[in-house]
Structures are given as structure tokens and as C-alpha cells.
């Protein structure tokens, strides 16, 4: 510091930096907090967030389960890297597991066996890692559904939806790669499957395959390469996305369901400190505890039973982890189409499933933007929809789930065939038909169901709640006494807004000249009518209708 200005600024000293006076009385905790604030300015951050309000609903815990299982995966994964040897070098096994004595295997497989049998607690950590991965993907899917069905992805949260989507996609892939690392017979089968899928890509397939595997299948590179991608590249990207995801949740403030006192402009709930810190922090330990317990009693991926990978051997019940099961279904129900012409082969039987696999994800990513475009809604939304009040969206979501389940069944066609005593042929054909018809049926049934629920809400508002008490009227008729809903309920059930469909611009403009209406505009108007037309919403009752009916009741 230059001395000649220090005199001039000494007066200002007290303003920059926490006052030095009265230091003795200060608590040590306060002092260190001041120290940190002096370098990082954390007080302003804490001021905005320590008592930040979070609304409460059980479904908001689903995102937390994702977060905690991710943390568990990282913790256990780091432990595993200390013992795992991602090498395809050949060794002969002389370990403690006698059935594999003297068998040739890769170092990767051997080290995975050693973790399971010779490192104390190694098997537990392996199983926690695998169970947590299964929970992680399941939790992400369910969390995504809650966000979808409540419309939480609407403005301003579309970008956070995209972050979440990328996490789901990367999470599934990272799970697949982890499954491939131990180089047992099952994991090798998965890697072979991937080779075939890559080879089916027109023009560049063989190049991609050679570059990824470092030569012909299986080569010596795929496991070390997967290892780096699995433990470093993808988790690194995911960590970044996850932090961004959570920052946006904080920044946007969480959505809430409609209810008394809750508006689009406020958020009602309890403060981060202490209630949410205790609940969310505690919930981490609950999730970890349950997964540890499951790993104590339920074995997952017992690699020693499969033996080491050999390209000419296979175990008959080769199945991927459940979340990849739908890709297995796609590939199983696809007919073996192949186009051979001009010295080239287009392996449609594999390539089409690969493309549909991609499309199943793409529709997730673009849905918020699609719905925003159709509804033309540019406002912020912080009050969640009840799924019944958005029947088209809810129907589309259920259609997607139906497709997913049909493909999952298709992926286990052999299991279903043996358990249901049907031929694989029959199951495969049923899945092929259902692939096209199932989602349509699911959509229609769901939409109708939503409409039924809307109608029931309307009834409840106008006629009150059934009390279960039967009353006999003077002239002998029996009626059930209906109780009026309290104001809170009346408000909650009618708080959602009902938009009108977008209208086409008038056919002639203000100068009387005929306007050309593009087909896109027309399509959009049609879709909008689908979302907001009379087939998709029952007009919610007004207070006036309610008054008429209730006073009518009085005349009885």
C-alpha cells in the first residue's frame, strides 16, 4: 500500500470492513463469519437465503431424492476407484472365489471380484453404488413427472427443465457405462449391443466404432475409456448442471399449489433455516440409510456368478438395468428390416430403434417450448396446475409413460412369455401393435378421466360435499345431506384460470383486403383449441351459479 494516501483514507477505514471496536465482546463464531464476509461478502447472500421460504408438499421431495442419491453415488464411486483397475489386460485368477480359480479374465473383472470378496466393506460399497444409481434414475423420472404434470416447467422455468432433462439423459448413460465397467459376461454383452447399434449408423458407423473401441470389437481400450467418461467426464458435467439447476430453483423460488393466501406473486411456506435445513439435511440421511440397508440385504449385479466376458459366450438372461429396458424393448420388437443396394447395407432393424430412442428424449426436451408456442402464454407461472385441469398435457404425459412401459414389457418379452405361458411371437406382436395404439388409448382415457374429475370438482362446489348422513324429508323421500364447502376449498378448487383457445386473425384485414392465413397459424389455432376447447375444460362455476343453486336448495 502506498503510504502517502493512507492519511487521507484513514477516515474512511471504519466504513470498509467490519468495525474493529468491541472485538473482545464478539463471539468467536461471529468473528470468523466477519472474516469470511470480509473476503467473500457472504452476508448479502445469507441475508437473501437463510430465511428463504420454501413451500411444502410431499412431491417436492422427489428432487431431493435425486440430489441425495447423486451425492451417495459420488461418495461411493470415489471409494470404488481406489480399488478398481480399469484395464483389459489379461490375468489368471487366483483369488478367494474358488469357482473362478485359474480362469483367464481382465484386470478390470479381477479387481471387481477383489472388491467384492477381499476388501472389507467393498461389496457393501459396490452394492450401495449400484442401488443408488437405480434409485437416482427412478427418482429423476418421477421428479420429472411431477414437474411435468403440475406444469412447473412453464415460464420462467423452461431452462431449468432443460438442465433437468440433460441430467436425466446423462444419468442414464452414466449408469449404462458403469454397468459395463466390471467386464463380466453381462456387461460385455451390453458393450457388444452398443457396438452393433453404432455400426448400424449410415455412412459413419464403422468409423465411430473403430474410434470408440480403438480398433475392432472388443479391443483393449473400451473399458479404460468408459472409465474416464464414467467417473470424470459425465459426473463433472452433471455436477455443473446440478449446481445450475439448484441455483435456478433458488433464484426462481419454488412453485406452490393453489390455496388460501397463495398467489402468483408470493410464496408461502417455512424458512430454509431451521426447518428446511433440518428436514432436507435429515432426509439425506434417511435416503442414505435406506439405500445402505437395502444393500445389506438385497444383492445387485452379483458379477461373480456371470463369469468374465468372452465374445463367444452369453448368459441367457442378459438384461440391462431397468431404465435401459425400454431401449431393449425397442430393439426387440423392431422387425429385421435391412436395405441392401449398391454395395451398401442400411441396417434399419437397428438404426430405427436408435432414432426412436433419441426421439423419446427429444420430445421431453422440447415439450415446454411446444406448449408455450401452442398456448401463446407469455406470463410467468408460479402456481402449479392440478393435472386434471390440464387434460391434454396430462394425457400426453401418460401417453409417454404408456409407451415407456410397453417398451419395457417388450424388452422383457422372454420373461413375460415364460411367466404368462405365451409365445414370444405373441408378446412381440402385441407390443408392436401397442407401440402405435397404446399411447393413443392412454391419451384418450386419461383425458376423459381428467374431464370426469373436473366435473366432479364442479359438482362438489355447487352442491357441497357428501356428508354420508341420510335425511328423510317430510314427504318420505330420502336425501343425503350435502355440506357446503368452506371458503378455502371453494377458492382452492376454482383458483386455476381457464384460457380461451387462440383465435385465427380475421379473414379480411382492416382495409377489407383478404388476409392469407398460413397453415402454421391454422395448425396452431387447432392445437390451441385442443388444449382449451370445450372438450378439454369444464367451465368452472362462478360464485353467482353457486348462489343460485344454494338458494334453490333453500326452497326445497
Amino acid at each position, binding site marked *: 500500500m502506498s503510504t502517502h494516501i493512507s492519511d487521507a483514507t484513514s477516515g474512511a477505514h471504519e466504513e470498509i470492513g467490519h468495525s474493529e471496536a468491541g472485538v473482545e465482546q464478539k463471539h468467536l463464531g461471529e468473528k470468523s463469519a466477519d472474516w469470511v464476509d470480509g473476503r467473500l461478502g457472504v452476508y448479502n447472500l445469507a441475508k437473501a437465503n437463510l430465511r428463504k421460504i420454501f413451500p411444502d408438499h410431499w412431491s417436492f421431495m422427489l428432487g431431493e431424492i435425486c440430489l441425495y442419491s447423486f451425492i451417495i453415488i459420488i461418495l461411493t464411486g470415489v471409494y470404488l476407484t481406489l480399488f478398481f483397475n480399469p484395464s483389459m489386460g489379461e490375468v489368471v485368477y487366483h483369488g478367494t472365489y474358488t469357482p473362478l480359480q485359474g480362469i483367464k479374465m481382465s484386470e478390470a473383472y479381477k479387481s471387481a471380484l477383489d472388491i467384492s470378496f477381499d476388501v*472389507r*466393506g467393498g461389496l457393501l460399497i459396490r452394492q450401495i453404488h449400484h442401488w443408488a444409481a437405480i434409485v437416482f434414475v427412478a427418482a429423476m423420472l418421477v421428479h420429472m413427472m411431477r414437474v411435468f404434470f403440475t406444469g412447473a416447467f412453464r415460464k420462467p422455468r423452461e431452462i431449468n427443465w432443460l438442465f433437468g432433462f440433460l441430467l436425466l439423459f446423462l444419468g442414464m448413460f452414466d449408469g449404462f457405462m458403469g454397468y459395463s465397467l466390471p467386464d463380466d459376461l453381462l456387461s460385455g454383452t451390453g458393450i457388444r449391443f452398443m457396438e452393433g447399434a453404432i*455400426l448400424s449408423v449410415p455412412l459413419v458407423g464403422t468409423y465411430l466404432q473403430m474410434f470408440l473401441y480403438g480398433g475392432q470389437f472388443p479391443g483393449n481400450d473400451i473399458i479404460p475409456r468408459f472409465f474416464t467418461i464414467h467417473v470424470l467426464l459425465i459426473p463433472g458435467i452433471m455436477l455443473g448442471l446440478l449446481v445450475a439447476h439448484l441455483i435456478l430453483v433458488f433464484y426462481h423460488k419454488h412453485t406452490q399449489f393453489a390455496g388460501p393466501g397463495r398467489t402468483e406473486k*408470493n410464496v408461502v411456506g*417455512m424458512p430454509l433455516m*431451521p426447518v428446511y435445513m433440518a428436514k432436507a439435511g*435429515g432426509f439425506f440421511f434417511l435416503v442414505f*440409510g435406506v439405500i445402505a440397508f437395502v444393500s*445389506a440385504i438385497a444383492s445387485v449385479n452379483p458379477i461373480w456368478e456371470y463369469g468374465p466376458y468372452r465374445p463367444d459366450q452369453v448368459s441367457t438372461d442378459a438384461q440391462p438395468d431397468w431404465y435401459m429396458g425400454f431401449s431393449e424393448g425397442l430393439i426387440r420388437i423392431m422387425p429385421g*428390416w435391412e436395405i441392401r443396394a449398391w454395395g451398401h447395407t442400411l441396417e434399419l432393424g437397428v438404426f430405427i430403434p436408435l432414432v426412436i430412442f433419441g426421439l423419446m428424449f427429444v420430445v421431453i426436451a422440447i415439450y415446454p417450448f411446444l406448449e408455450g408456442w401452442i398456448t401463446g402464454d407469455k406470463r410467468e407461472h408460479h402456481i402449479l396446475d392440478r393435472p386434471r385441469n390440464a387434460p391434454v398435457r396430462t394425457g400426453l404425459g401418460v401417453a409417454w409413460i404408456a409407451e415407456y412401459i410397453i417398451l419395457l414389457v417388450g424388452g422383457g418379452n422372454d420373461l413375460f412369455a415364460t411367466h404368462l405361458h405365451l409365445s414370444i411371437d405373441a408378446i412381440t406382436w402385441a407390443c408392436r401393435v401397442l407401440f402405435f395404439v397404446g399411447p393413443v388409448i392412454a391419451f384418450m382415457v386419461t383425458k376423459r378421466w381428467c374431464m370426469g374429475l373436473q366435473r366432479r370438482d364442479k359438482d362438489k362446489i355447487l352442491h357441497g360435499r357428501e356428508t354420508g348422513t341420510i335425511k328423510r324429508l317430510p314427504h318420505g323421500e330420502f336425501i343425503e345431506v350435502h355440506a357446503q364447502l368452506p371458503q378455502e376449498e371453494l377458492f382452492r378448487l376454482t383458483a386455476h384460470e381457464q384460457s380461451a383457445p387462440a383465435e385465427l386473425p380475421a379473414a379480411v384485414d382492416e382495409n377489407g383486403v383478404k388476409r392469407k392465413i398460413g397453415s402454421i397459424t391454422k395448425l396452431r389455432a387447432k392445437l390451441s383449441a385442443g388444449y382449451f376447447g370445450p372438450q378439454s375444460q369444464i367451465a368452472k362455476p362462478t360464485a353467482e351459479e353457486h348462489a343460485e343453486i344454494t338458494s334453490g336448495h333453500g326452497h326445497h
Partner: protein
Amino acid sequence: MTSQDNMSEEHLPEAAHGHGGGPVVSKDGYFADPGLPPHEHRRTDIDEKAARRAERQVAMWFLLSMLATVGFIASYVIFKPGPTHHVFIWPIGNVSPLNFALGVTLGISLFAIGAGAVHWARTLMSDEEHIAERHPIEATPEVREQVFADFRQGSKESGFGRRKLIRNTMIGAMAMVPLSAVVLFRDLGPLPEKKLDTTGWKAGMLLKNMNTGEPIQASDVQVGSLTFAMPADLSEDDEDFQERIAKDALMLVRLQPGDIKDKKSADWGYHGVLAFSKICTHVGCPISLYEQQTHHVLCPCHQSTFDLSDGARVIFGPAGHALPQLQIGVDNTGNLEALNGFTVPVGPGFWERSE
């Protein structure tokens, strides 16, 4: 502060409770928001005894966690690792005692912390709901204007728009620099060339039984069984064994010559002994299931089914083309040998594959 003032009106309940019986109506004709209901006290809020009981319960959870951690460390020391130590625990079955004890104690020590914290939050921490304001994410028009003005100013000072030469060369440089990164990936692997078209099989190469490692007499191949074979020059100790077996693995069947429907297929065999690639033409699983009455083989991965009596044509499932056949005969000692290499690529289809 003005934005807050504007908003405060909106989240005030539009009218108070209990207004002559009927529901309160809002401006738009629907039911009005009655506002946040008053906070209801829990037992622990008003009864110090209940609160003290809750406190003891929370502490019990934390104590349980400590005990479980001690149990974890004890289990680590006491129980032996390894596959040979098993105990039967009802109803789970045979488990490794080490894994079981470590998992259960770890599970309890973690779960108990969670249960304690959540119980604490639910019984003793305030459950009063608070209201916080939301502020629009979008900036005010003034801020927006300011940002645009700043940007225009910065842009003007840089001369980016005016000095086209700088702009264009910079874009060119930025577009080209990633090329170096792309080029660096070239050595990830070799070019495909004809690698996928060929296998290790050549004319005159003996077939070797996969299990015994011995050459195969034609008479050793029995009707009704599937025999797996590999080239005689390949050994499990070879450096490139995995790569070669992924393409060279064979399966042999013997059919009654009269049962063979495909003439060329019969000609390529030896007295009804036929040799097909074991690698499924779908995505490359090894085929392993043989049904002797129908002469069908089934791939366990996605159930592609091939008819070995008819040139291994696909009769069911997602595979796109027949299993390639290897032309075989016998040498002067009666051992099966290849009369030719595979004439079409084995395994999954790919773009450059021609048939």
C-alpha cells in the same frame, strides 16, 4: 419499493371471513381468496412436557446412531470377508455376514440421524408459515434500456461493427481453432478399411473344438447337438484372442442331407455337417440355443431365430440377414477344415457391408 407496494394489494385477502353466511365473491365473479388461515399450535408448542418428551425422542435417535456406528466398526473387525463365509438369515437367505452386518449398522447409523433431524423439525421447530414476495424475473424497462445503451456503447468503442476486416478475420480464426482439437482425435482408432469384412478363417485351416482344443473328426459331430469351434491357429493365450473369437467363433451341426433345403448350403457342408458363424447378425451376441427337431437356433439376446436347414435364414426376430456359412471339407486325416474364408462379413450389419 414501488413494485412491492403495487403487489401488496394483490395478496391481501379480497375480503374478510364470515360475511353473512354465503361465500365471499371476488372481483372477477369467482370465489375470493380468504387469505392464509391462522396458525394452529401443536401440542409441543404449548405443552412444555410434550416438548421435553419430543426432545428426548430426538436424542434417542442420535444415540441410536452412535451405537450403530460402534456396531459398524465392531463388525468390520469381527467378520471375515470372502465368498466362503455365509450365514442363513430369514427371510433373505444366505448372506455374507460381513456385508449384512456392515450394511445394517451403517443403514441404522445414517437413518437414525435423519429420523432425529426430521422429528426435531416437525415437533420442536416453528411450523408457522411465512409469506415472501416474488419479484418479476424480467428487468424493468429502464434497466433494459440501460443495458442496451451500455452494450451499444461498448460495441461502438470496440469498432467491431465498423472494422469489417478485424471482424471477419477474427470469426475465421475462431472457427478454425477448434479444428486442431478435432484432428487430435484421429488417433483414437484405426480406419475401418476392410477390417470388418474379413475373419481369421482361410482355406485349409483346421477347425478346433472350443471345449477340447482338439481338431474335429467329421464323425464327432452328432445329429441333434451344437458343437462350437474356432480356428486351429487361435489359442486362448493369444494377445488378440478376444478380438478374433468375436468374429471367428463357429457352430457346427449335422443334419440329415435330405433335410437340407438350401442346395448351396448343403454343398458347402461335409456330408450334412454344416458350419455357421456363431455371431448373431443382429447386434452380435453369440448364439447358443439349438432346437434339434426344427433345426432352429435362437439368439438369447433378442430372440432372432435362424433356420439352419435353410441356409440359416432369419425366420423370426430383429436380425436382418442370414448367418454366414463357412465352406468346409476334411483333410487327409478326416479332420474338418475350412475350404475357404467367410465370403461375407460376419456379425452385425454396417454401411459398407455388401453381399
